[in-house]
């Protein structure tokens, strides 16, 4: 006659199942560092030109992804073929309508050498005929945490049917704009995103790759918005003379630093124009009454 299962043994088996059946939390990090690219030698970081940058409008602007670690984004398989351009296009669009930007070139990340520094940036800027380069660095972390019922993966069927993995992708993008000839830092803007989802064990990698791409797209869109505000603030700072290391010379050769504080306009804002229209509507209504 078979012996009945001891409750303590049964409990131990369930605990073992729960412990080893569940997937363990996993973290994947993809990172490209602007500092590692531009200043690879800590003690020999090139100093910016003491005379500062004199930007001549219209600007010729280049945009590129900073290489990550020891290789480019593409080589690390962080971005598939054809994925880099649409992402950089988001940044390009935020500059496109600016009258002070003449042309915008998308620089393939394959042309940037890991740890290449300003020497490499000089080469690429000359090659593309640009003076100012926006360097985009990315920090992406993907977390996978098991849900309580992920022990069902042990049944094999569960691994294909039940979404027992909670996936969380956090992306932080940073665009730093440099005047290459003088090695002067001009401005920076951040962009961030968070993408959450659940997947089965079998579908986990597919979802993480999709979230990685989506996270980059959302962060780029956020970056584009922030970049707009940062560029406006940058111009205001130059015009008011707060940025002593940078001057902008317009198409007519007039320095923004010299003229910016003294160019005046008689202006009404849109809220005021709206208020004026409301008064007009009220006036017309009263006239009819």
């Amino acid at each position, binding site marked *: 006659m078979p012996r009945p299962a001891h409750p303590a043994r049964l409990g131990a088996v369930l605990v073992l199942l729960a412990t080893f059946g569940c997937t363990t939390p996993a973290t994947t990090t993809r990172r490209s560092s602007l500092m590692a690219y531009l200043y690879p030698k800590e003690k020999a970081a090139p100093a910016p030109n003491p005379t500062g940058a004199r930007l001549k409008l219209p600007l010729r602007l280049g945009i590129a992804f900073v290489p990550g670690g020891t290789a480019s984004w593409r080589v690390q398989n962080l971005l598939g073929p054809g994925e880099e351009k649409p992402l950089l296009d988001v940044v390009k669009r935020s500059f496109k309508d600016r009258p002070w930007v003449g042309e915008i070139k998308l620089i393939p990340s394959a042309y940037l050498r890991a740890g290449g520094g300003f020497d490499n940036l000089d080469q690429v800027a000359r090659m593309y005929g640009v003076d100012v380069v926006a360097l985009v660095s990315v920090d992406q972390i993907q977390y996978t945490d098991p849900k309580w019922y992920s022990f069902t993966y042990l049944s094999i069927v569960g691994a294909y049917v039940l979404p027992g993995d909670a996936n969380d992708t956090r992306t932080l993008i940073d665009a730093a704009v440099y005047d290459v000839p003088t090695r002067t830092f001009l401005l920076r803007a951040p962009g961030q995103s968070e993408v959450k989802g659940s997947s089965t064990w079998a579908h986990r990698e597919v979802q993480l790759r999709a979230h990685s791409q989506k996270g980059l797209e959302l962060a780029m869109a956020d970056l584009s918005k922030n970049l707009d505000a940062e560029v406006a603030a940058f111009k205001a700072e130059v015009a008011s003379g707060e940025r002593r290391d940078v001057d902008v010379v317009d198409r007519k050769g007039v320095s923004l630093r010299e003229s910016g504080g003294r*160019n*005046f306009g*008689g202006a009404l804002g849109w809220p005021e*124009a709206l208020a004026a229209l409301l008064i007009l509507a009220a006036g017309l209504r009263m006239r009819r009454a």
Partner: protein
Amino acid sequence: MDPWALTADALREPWRLWTGHLAHYGWGHALANAVALLVPLVLLPPRERRRAALALLALAPALSLAILPGLGAGEYRGASGLACALWALAGLHLAGRRESAAVGLLMLAGLGIKLAAEAVLGAGFLLRAEGWQTMPAAHLWGTALGLGWALPGSLRRRPA
């Protein structure tokens, strides 16, 4: 330098006294000012509308001469100084008539709030990202000139 903007060159090139109010820094700038100019013109009765338009022709150089000393080596573009003059002029005219007194007072109050906001909020509020800044003095002078133009007529209309 722009040949239409108001600069110190206006003393040699007098057309700038008028064209400075027509030149703008962009379409957005011009459109907002055009709205501000149109509102009082629409609210005024047709006969007064013609008079107001003629008054603007005379007020434009006066306003330019008033703000010129404050420009230094810089330039001025925009019609909002003139728009303030027109709001003051039309507001006073409409406020003096029983049937349109409420609208006139509303216009004068709106103008007063704008001038007060500019005085209180200062340079941070006035500096535009495109590299120029709003000149509150133009609005103040415009308002003063508009009131000065309309006041004699307004007093004449009042019964003794």
